[in-house]
């Protein structure tokens, strides 16, 4: 603790330090985290918790479980903080952990059902789509949009898992094809074809909702 921080409450000092990390890249913050800085770790949690939660939630249809898995992702990051190499992108690393943990969850669910096919996840999610919670009642003018949102969620949920994970990483997380390939451990050509297949399937399911201005 700096001498000038002596009279300041601990939480404020934390916030101050967190602010000071705002300008740093993920990799630099992770480097500090590797040296044992809790503030740096908290900064990473703040940056990534929503993204990880969204990613995991879109793979498994269970919000509580998604939160547990998201926490597990950060626990893994903390546990392996010294193994992280700055040469790689932090986002790729943490998303790889998240995808692997999510796949484990899917496998264990599928195994519980007595089948070993990952495609059986569709059955697991019941074809109901992935959670896009919207608890607030929608005004009348937004009803159309709300319905479309549900249809999009349903269409995404009905994609086979290997296509869904590719399209979610690309279109929800905005990752490059190369990053998607690194995270999923598949070559570039496979990434390209999976994303394309997934989008074509989505397009077929969402066709009735495409307006002239969309097209």
């Amino acid at each position: 603790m700096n001498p000038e921080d002596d009279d300041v409450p601990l939480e404020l000092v934390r916030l101050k330090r967190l602010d000071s990390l705002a300008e740093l890249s993920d990799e630099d913050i992770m480097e500090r985290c590797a040296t044992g800085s809790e503030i740096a770790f908290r900064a990473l949690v703040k940056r990534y918790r929503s993204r990880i939660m969204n990613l995991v939630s879109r793979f498994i249809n269970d919000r509580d479980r998604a939160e547990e898995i998201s926490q597990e992702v950060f626990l893994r990051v903390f546990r392996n903080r010294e193994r992280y190499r700055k040469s790689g992108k932090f986002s790729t690393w943490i998303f790889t952990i998240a995808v692997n943990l999510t796949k484990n969850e899917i496998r264990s669910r599928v195994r519980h059902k007595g089948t070993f096919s990952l495609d059986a996840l569709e059955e697991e999610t019941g074809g109901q789509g992935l959670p896009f919670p919207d608890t607030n009642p929608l005004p009348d003018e937004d009803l159309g949009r709300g319905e479309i949102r549900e249809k999009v969620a349903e269409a995404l949920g009905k994609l086979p898992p290997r296509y869904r994970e590719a399209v979610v990483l690309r279109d929800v997380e905005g990752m490059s094809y190369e990053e998607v390939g690194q995270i999923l451990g598949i070559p570039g050509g496979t990434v390209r074809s999976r994303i394309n297949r997934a989008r074509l399937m989505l397009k077929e399911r969402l066709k009735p909702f495409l307006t002239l201005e969309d097209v």
Partner: protein
Amino acid sequence: MNCRSAESLFSAFLDDELTQAERRHFESHLLGCRRCSQSVRELKGAMALVSEAVTASAIETSPHFEDDLMDRIRSGEAMRPTVVEWLQRFLVPERLGPAFLVGASACAVFVAAVLFQGAMRPDVTKTPVMAGRSTSDPVTASPTVPVSSAVAELPAVAPPATTIASAVPTVNRTSAPRQSDANGIVEIADRAIPTNRAELDSALPNPDAQFVDEYVTDHFFLQRGGVVSDPQQSSLVPVTDKGSDGVYIEF
């Protein structure tokens, strides 16, 4: 480029992931194909819908997410290795080295023992068989059957239904008195070793059992053939478990 191959490039085109050559071919196809250009527009619209829906329905973590996480870290849970991590730590080369050496040594000793045992065993295929018996004899045609087990399989009263029995012509074994020890080794005790056929037959307590005994002793003879002075002479060595070399037990 046909429509099928063009369709496989729709997403890469929209994401600007095509090479220059691919883009050139693709665009020239789109110019001449109304269906594909319409599909590309629809795909773009669908992607916009998905993007909008995803953005509008972002899922937030619970307010106590961070505190729960830090509590788990402080409790030491973060440092608890998973099964896979534990195995990875255990299976490091430094730890595996001594274990590997011990395992390799044990394997080497075992292999050496097996080889030594094989080298010490006499070669039964080169030993002469009893005079007057051809190799096509059904008894000698099954030399791989262990004698001790074959004899042990012969019941004292009931007719046998074992593999050795099928190799031996029908014999009334009920009349062949035998004594067997705890290991099932049949004993024809304390007789002088017969040296010819006549003595052989007379040495048997029951002529009906001759074939079985011959079979047994034939193999015993084969094992002991090296020590018989005149292998051409028909000879029979009674089976006994009191031999000094225990050779029939090894059968």
